[in-house]
């Protein structure tokens, strides 16, 4: 979870957005973390580099918990 948090914050920071202090499994990527499609695209690349999993391959993932489930599969 810590690595994933770091990745999420890197993506937000890269786009000049505010880093998220509270990130948990229920955090919604778009609504809570304010990610748009460019952020999500970057997020997939960085997660893939770290975990070798394309979390969006089967469709859009909405929450941090859904990402964790795919990584831990």
């Amino acid at each position, binding site marked *: 979870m810590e690595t994933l948090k770091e990745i999420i914050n890197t993506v937000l920071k890269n786009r000049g957005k505010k880093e998220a202090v509270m990130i948990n499994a229920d955090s919604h990527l778009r609504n809570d973390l304010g990610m748009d499609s460019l952020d999500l*695209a970057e997020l997939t*690349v960085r997660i893939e580099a770290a975990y070798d999993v394309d979390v*969006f391959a089967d469709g859009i993932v909405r929450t941090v918990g859904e990402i964790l489930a795919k990584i831990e599969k």
Partner: protein
Amino acid sequence: MKDTVFFKDSLCSLSISWEQLLNNLNKKKLYNPYCKSSSFYEIFEHIILSMLLGEEIILLDGDFSEQEIEALVGQKDTTTFDKPVSSVLSLSTSADLITKISSPASLWKITLFTSGTTGLPKKVSHTFSSITRFVRKGDAHLNAVWGFAYNPTHMAGLQVLFQALLNGNTIIRLFQLPRDLIIHEILVNKITNISATPTFYRLLMPPDFKLPSVQRITSGGEKFDKTMLGQLSIMFPNAKITNVYASTEAGTLFASVDDAFSVKKDFASFVKIENNELYIHQSLLGQSEQFQNEWYCTGDLVETVSQTPLTFRFVSRKDEMINVGGYKVNPNEVEEAIRRIDGVADVRVYSKSNSVLGNIICCEVARLNPELTEPLVRTELQKSLQEFKIPRLVTFVEKVQVTRTGKIKRS
């Protein structure tokens, strides 16, 4: 001209004079229309031999795999096409050689393969007149020393070869040499002319020294890099800098002193622009099965500057445009913006398939300053590029990857 060097290749520790070239040609007993070699000299010698014999020559890249050769030729082994040379050549002087190759038999043609990024390379054949359309002869060219900075089996390399060959010049290999050796070769051999891609020139930067012997710099094969122009003028203080537009299909077509090409009167009815794409009339092209229509669509996207005379700027290759979630991104534009950032030596922008947006923009940056970081690159780019054009992944490398033609690798 007796002792003049014809070709020097420091990577192969080879130096061949014009006299040695004559001797080597006079000894030839076999001819094979297929030319595949990793030796630049062997390729040049083979081309000259084909012209003297009036036989077709088919150039295969030295690094084509057996599978590629089989697909192109029909068999893996091309040595079975060897045949005896029909007559003894008996060349006496280099002037004799130049006279003979200046008017090869009408059957002579040179066939090469387009360096397409997808599918099997396509065959294009040129006659002597189409391949030498832009060769200039005369006293002003007699003492030129050419830096050879292209793949010898591709169109741009052939343009340099014929220009040097038909004027009895010296050719010095620069292609694939490390930066320090390139500079050494230019200085030691007093190279006067260099024709190369913008990528080649960028690898010579920064301009922390001067190379005064060079009188002419030609840039071609990729989008002209205006940022580099100033740096080139520092490095080559005595050089006139020209930008050329050439293609495997048509050879050299246009030249200009900046990035806008004006179509000369003679060519006006053979060039047109439709939907921002450049079309060339078939009469200016070589021969190929791929040329089915009267007008050949070049796949080059251009911007029209004026109608009379028709003047245009190259924007990008049509197939280079990257589709990011429905937005078209020109990788050349992104590269130009990155190159303007302090501390960037070179950059390569490429696409990576992405499950969210279809494709995303990535880049490799060779940096001069280790303090240049990914966030810094992004912050700088936000000042000049739309958000969807900014690379989502920036990696730092020692040297950016180039294709076998010496252009930036896009995939």
